């Protein structure tokens, strides 16, 4: 139980092997230290994992967490998180999702659910306030995600996997409604446990510390989001798809397996094309006021349209300008239950291997007729598809081409080509879960897309990466959509890019990061009320905890360091924060020597800013953050990381 408001005060522990359930001990001290969401999950996993543990082991836990703002009525707070050991990367992954499951889990009376063990037969777990049922899922097994959800439509909150998860495709995902916990293969971990579906139902609501004040804050917060040029105009009108043309202009649109940053046919696969000719309506996650999701027609069905990542990686990155094909593939991949980013990245790598004559997987740049078949083959692990189902890192270990296998720590990169946004490149390299644009800190929003900070300089980028990574970690920990953090940038900076005031502010922006990071070390000094980041006040009003800018950044740093040391325990090597040589050694523009990621320079500063050595948090840094580990256990993990194999 908890004396804090906002939380339900209980964490559910489910054992699939024994078909039992109980409560996992979690105290208010733990809540205050970890906030919620992925930070809470990282802390739970850090104290559970062992160096030998693998993703498909029975005792690899699936940790499903909500945040203190979930279910409190705050805008864009229906998010939940699934963390586990990733089969794709062999380190922790955390996958955030906007479907209904988080809300219903909380209504059932739980802040989180931990799932361990392995069911002998396919199982559907149903969670209610006082009970957990282990239902036979034999009839669900083999269904695609749409059919599975249709069969479970009487359950308000659902998580399901598709055939890719059942067949342990290393980047299989989990669906809740039409939203996805997409990255790192959480769906494959579900599949390894014979877990086809999890549902939840309940009627509880969290108590609120100051309900009236939170309601008033929410009114202002909604207005802020609706009036902001990014969250109030661009995202509702074009969704994330609207970035394709922006990325083309800024030379960061991944093209032909990241060998270029621009694609001549970009207009045909752009957000504008989608909005003008294929959009049926907007859609939103529950509690969302941004409404960035696109609903499109595929055949006779109205289905979720592609995000920017899918448009970019199944468009320019494989030299395809057929948007109708992308709409169809997006639907097919969702039905099969696969991450479109890792799947498309693996396909592009296969295409380049074929072009170079290394191995012909049957897929080729610019040829799209057989891709639907390839996606099916991947999901069911048939023929060449079985090779692509393991992702580009394993493919490169088998066939070569490591320098152009576009992943970081085994996770394929999102659609942003970082040689023209070098800070974003640093983010990709240092992100704990691998090549993820959001876990990276999304520096590209500063480097041309939203604001106009010099995208080719390495100066200041390390501190900005740390600041944004910590900030987004904490926003996610609240249970909030990461897009709400874009409103932290004052609207005029976005609205008036050519105004002299904007230019002056952006000129000094690279120096902001170190100052803000310093504040996280002086929590008592940093009592800054930041109206553009209402999460801070909202957490206080929902829970009663005292919160400041510094406490948000400290929560973020806690999560980032807990994940990192977990990864070291799991076998991540020292200095593993790397990118493929194509991005660090080859110029994107042969006439511009700045168009490659100067990773070594930035990484050195980044490690110093984090208090890490060779990418490993020092024992002192962990202790400062309150992460307590046995010193001998820590030393052994570090020694393994430093050992050259």
């Amino acid at each position, binding site marked *: 139980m908890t004396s804090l408001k906002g939380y339900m005060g209980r964490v559910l522990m489910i054992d699939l092997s024994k078909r039992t359930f109980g409560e996992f001990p979690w105290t208010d001290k733990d809540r205050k230290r970890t906030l919620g969401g992925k930070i809470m999950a990282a802390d739970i996993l850090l104290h559970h994992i062992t160096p030998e543990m693998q993703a498909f082991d029975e005792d690899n836990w699936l940790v499903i967490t909500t945040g203190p703002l979930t279910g409190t009525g705050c805008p864009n707070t229906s998010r939940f998180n699934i963390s586990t050991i990733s089969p794709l990367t062999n380190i922790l992954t955390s996958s955030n999702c906007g479907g209904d499951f988080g809300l219903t889990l909380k209504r059932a009376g739980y802040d989180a659910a931990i799932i361990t063990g392995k069911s002998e037969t396919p199982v559907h777990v149903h969670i209610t306030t006082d009970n957990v049922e282990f239902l036979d899922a034999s009839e669900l097994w083999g269904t695609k995600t749409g059919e599975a959800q249709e069969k479970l439509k009487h359950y308000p909150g659902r998580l399901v996997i598709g055939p890719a998860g059942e067949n342990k495709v290393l980047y299989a995902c989990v669906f809740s409604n039409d939203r996805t916990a997409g990255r790192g293969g959480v769906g494959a971990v579900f599949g390894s446990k014979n877990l086809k579906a999890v549902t939840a139902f309940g009627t509880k609501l969290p108590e609120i510390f100051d309900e009236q004040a939170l309601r008033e804050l929410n009114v202002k917060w909604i207005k802020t989001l609706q009036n902001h*040029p*990014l969250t109030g*105009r*661009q*995202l509702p*009108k*074009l*969704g*994330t*798809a*609207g*970035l394709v*043309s*922006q990325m083309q*202009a800024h030379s960061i649109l991944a093209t032909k397996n990241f060998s270029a940053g*621009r694609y001549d046919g970009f207009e045909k696969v*752009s*957000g*504008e094309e989608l*909005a003008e000719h294929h959009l049926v309506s907007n859609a939103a996650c529950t509690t969302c006021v941004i409404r*960035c999701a696109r609903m499109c027609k595929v055949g006779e069905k109205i289905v979720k349209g592609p*995000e*920017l990542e899918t448009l970019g990686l199944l468009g320019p990155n494989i030299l395809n300008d057929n948007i109708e094909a992308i709409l169809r593939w997006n639907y097919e991949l969702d039905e099969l239950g696969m991450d479109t980013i890792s799947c498309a990245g693996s396909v592009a790598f296969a295409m380049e291997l074929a072009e170079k004559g290394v191995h012909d997987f049957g897929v080729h740049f610019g040829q799209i007729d057989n891709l639907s078949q390839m996606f099916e083959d991947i999901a069911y692990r048939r023929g060449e598809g079985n090779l692509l189902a393991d992702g580009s890192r394993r493919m490169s270990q088998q066939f070569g081409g490591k320098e152009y296998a576009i992943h970081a720590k085994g996770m394929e990169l999102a659609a942003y080509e970082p040689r023209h946004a070098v800070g974003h490149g640093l983010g990709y390299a240092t992100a704990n879960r691998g090549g993820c*644009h*959001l876990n990276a800190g*999304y520096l590209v*929003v500063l480097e041309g*897309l*939203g*604001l*106009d900070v010099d995208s080719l300089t390495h100066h200041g980028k390390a501190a900005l990466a740390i600041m944004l990574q910590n900030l987004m970690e904490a926003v996610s920990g609240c249970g909030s959509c*990461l*897009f709400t953090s*874009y409103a932290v940038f004052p609207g005029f900076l*976005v*609205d*008036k*890019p*050519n*105004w002299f005031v904007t230019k002056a502010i952006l000129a000094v922006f690279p120096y902001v990061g170190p100052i803000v990071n310093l504040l996280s070390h002086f929590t008592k000094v940093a009592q800054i009320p930041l109206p553009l980041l209402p999460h801070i006040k909202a957490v206080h009003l929902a829970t009663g905890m005292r919160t400041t800018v510094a406490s948000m950044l400290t929560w973020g740093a806690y999560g980032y360091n807990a994940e990192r040391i977990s990864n070291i325990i799991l076998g991540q090597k020292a200095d593993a924060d790397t990118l493929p040589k194509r991005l660090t050694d080859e110029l994107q523009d042969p006439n511009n020597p700045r168009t490659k990621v100067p990773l070594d320079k930035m990484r050195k500063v980044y490690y110093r800013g984090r208090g890490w050595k060779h990418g490993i948090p020092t024992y002192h840094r962990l202790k400062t953050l309150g992460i307590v580990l046995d010193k001998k256990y820590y030393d052994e993990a570090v020694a393994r990381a430093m050992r050259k194999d």
Partner: protein
Amino acid sequence: MANVTVKLFGVLRMDTHLAKETLNIEKVGDLFDSINRTIDKRYQENLAENPALEKPEKLAFKHVVLFVNGERCTKKGRKLADGDEIWVLSPASGG
């Protein structure tokens, strides 16, 4: 004077219902008067069909991001040549 192609992207294109226009102008800064006239004309035409149509805001140099032939342009006074292509964008974000 130069014959140039102007392309609008993002929110600007959605708001103005204008994707592409050919203009005869001398400098980058000249495009705003010409393009605003076209946008206004287009708005008046569309208004007859859709009386609820919101009037788009006038484009101004301060509010947009410009690229000329793929290169970022921050100077209004930049001279243009025949065949130049100008991209007009507004800042964006996503994930």
